[in-house]
């Protein structure tokens, strides 16, 4: 069992106060423990934790590029195998690095079946470069490259279903979790690193700066995502849903209203049509994962 008290992520890092991904990093490391090698992608996580020579990481970590963390991990895993070493090899990457530019290396690594755990901290946009849209950005969220405007309600595409995509790659274990439920992250990471083969975990990691809410609300916003059904915590074991948390759902606007990125749906006028579309997304989620009580 993971020793939850072990602190492997140092203070002094430069994340915004209340940063969801920073919290995710701490919790992930609690899940996998010190016998771990981490690869990270370029992004907020890397930038706030590794300005030379100040690293926040107490486990071995390597950063190469934005898009190749899973390929670097493949090489590490192969090397360890050859050396007879058995550290866990995990990737910790942003949603941009994962859903978008990293897909080549990820798809390849999963197809090859390396024994690695790929963890995406999903703050639903490219935060490091100033809140641009990613494939993980939810429908209608306003970002700097999918701005709400006179002819736009923000991001026009649904969130890419990466858990299903990677399950279709044959990943034995795929799970979603949220910083709003710290113990759940720890548990799932622990399960993943102890599962043979390529596993995937997607951590919902609210970003106060990018989503537009006060840093103290990071957990609250994360909980609302789950309580509205816009985020579902589930586990896919060999492609089938094993467990998804049941909830009594709230209307999606409870979640949307908390965040500036959805403000255009309420101001200057409330946009019922668009809000209904988002509600429909939650409804589909609820059905798909059977989360309604």
């Amino acid at each position, binding site marked *: 069992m993971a020793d939850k008290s072990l602190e492997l992520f140092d203070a002094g890092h430069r994340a915004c106060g209340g940063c969801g991904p920073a919290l995710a990093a701490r919790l992930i490391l609690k899940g996998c423990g010190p*016998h771990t090698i981490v690869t990270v992608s370029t992004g907020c996580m890397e930038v706030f934790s*590794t300005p030379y020579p100040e690293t926040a990481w107490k486990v071995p970590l390597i950063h*190469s590029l934005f898009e190749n963390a899973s390929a670097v991990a493949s*090489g*590490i895993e192969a*090397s*360890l195998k050859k*050396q007879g070493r058995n550290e866990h090899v995990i990737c910790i990457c942003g949603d941009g690095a994962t859903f978008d530019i990293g897909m080549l*290396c990820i798809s390849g690594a999963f197809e090859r079946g390396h024994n690695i755990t790929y963890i995406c901290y999903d703050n639903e946009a490219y935060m490091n470069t100033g809140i641009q849209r990613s494939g993980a950005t939810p429908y209608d969220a306003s970002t700097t490259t999918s701005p709400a405007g006179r002819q736009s309600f923000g991001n026009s595409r649904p969130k890419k279903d990466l858990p299903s995509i990677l399950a279709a790659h044959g990943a034995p274990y795929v799970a979603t979790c949220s910083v709003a439920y710290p113990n759940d992250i720890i548990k799932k990471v622990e399960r993943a690193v102890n599962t043979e083969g390529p596993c995937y975990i997607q951590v919902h990691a609210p970003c106060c700066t990018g989503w537009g809410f006060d840093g103290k609300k990071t957990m609250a916003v994360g909980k609302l995502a789950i309580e509205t059904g816009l985020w579902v915590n589930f586990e896919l074991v060999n492609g089938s849903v094993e467990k998804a948390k049941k909830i009594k759902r709230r209307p999606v606007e409870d979640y949307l209203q908390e965040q500036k990125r959805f403000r255009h749906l309420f101001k200057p006028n409330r946009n019922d049509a668009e809000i209904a579309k988002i509600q429909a997304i939650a409804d589909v989620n609820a059905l798909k994962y059977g989360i309604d009580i």
Partner: protein
Amino acid sequence: MLQIMEGSHAVAEAVKLCRPDVIAAYPITPQTHIVERLADMVADGELDSEYICVESEFSALSACLGASAAGSRVYSATSSQGLLLMAEVCFNVAGMRQPVVMSIANRAVGAPLSIWNDQQDSISLRDAGWFQWYAEDAQEISDFHFLAYKVAEDNNVLLPGFICFDGFILSHTYEPVDIPDQESVSAFLPPYHPVIQLDATDPMTMGMYATPDYYMEFRYEIDKAMTQSAIALRKAGSEFKEHFGRDYGELIEEYRLSDADFAFVALGSVCGTIKDAVDEMRKDGKKVGLLKIRSYRPFPAEEIKKALSGIPLVAIIEKNLSIGSRMKGAVGLEVKDAINDSGVCVYSYIIGLGGRDIRKLHIRGVYEEAMKGNGDTFYGLREELL
């Protein structure tokens, strides 16, 4: 033992003798025979390496980086489009100071697509921080691999390197080559002992970012290490001679230069053809010679200056094109800089691009053009197509 085999297989045999722990490569013509042969060796249990069948060159080199960082000796090979696809990773590996060795079966780059030989691929990566050596024949290709790991892993160097050889022309040619035995190679090239390494028992962070306070010094260090690699190569080269008899003490090779009043300068397999042409021209009473550049990175400017001193006319045989540069060829610029004497006329000739065959008569043709004062130009174009 002297054997006859395909150039690619000579590479594979040499690689096997270097005992890489991890191999990650992606097939591309004309590099394929190398990785196929290595795959065979692994499948037959002759080679105890982890062979990663990657989905792209981008991952090939990225995986090599990871494995190297974890403490393994690693190997890759590519060509042309594959090298361009991994350009970003190339710069990265050098900056991360990982002694990755990669064979480049030189091939033209598209568009238009061409699977045939020139040296545009590796030349285009000349800023990337990898040493680049160019082989003339199968023997050099093979020997360079032993030297490359030795130099790359030298603690004063810790840089990756390309071993470049002309695709098809060398990779697909059967010719005699002396492949040493494992014992001698192991004596020359001991196991790799990383200086920095990913290891849970002694954690460290690799690949941090550098603010303006630090970045420039890191780049300086890489450039310094590159300079050091020349020293390391000379040292390894003479050690190699002791072990194997063949001499790689110099980054250049001079052929009938000492009394020459005209010099060709070239990289790679065309040097063989030039040597034959030089012999012929000598018979015709022309005092010509060849300067072969083995190491293009680091660029051996001092040696070149010395070797060419007193020669008034120099023709660079270039299998590359820097589009929009006055001189057109990338090598010529640096040779000219090295000589640094406007009394000397240095001409660049773009020749043999995309597999256009280079014959002795073309070498003689270049000479004629140079004597006429026509230089810094293409040679051997089909006028009817223009």
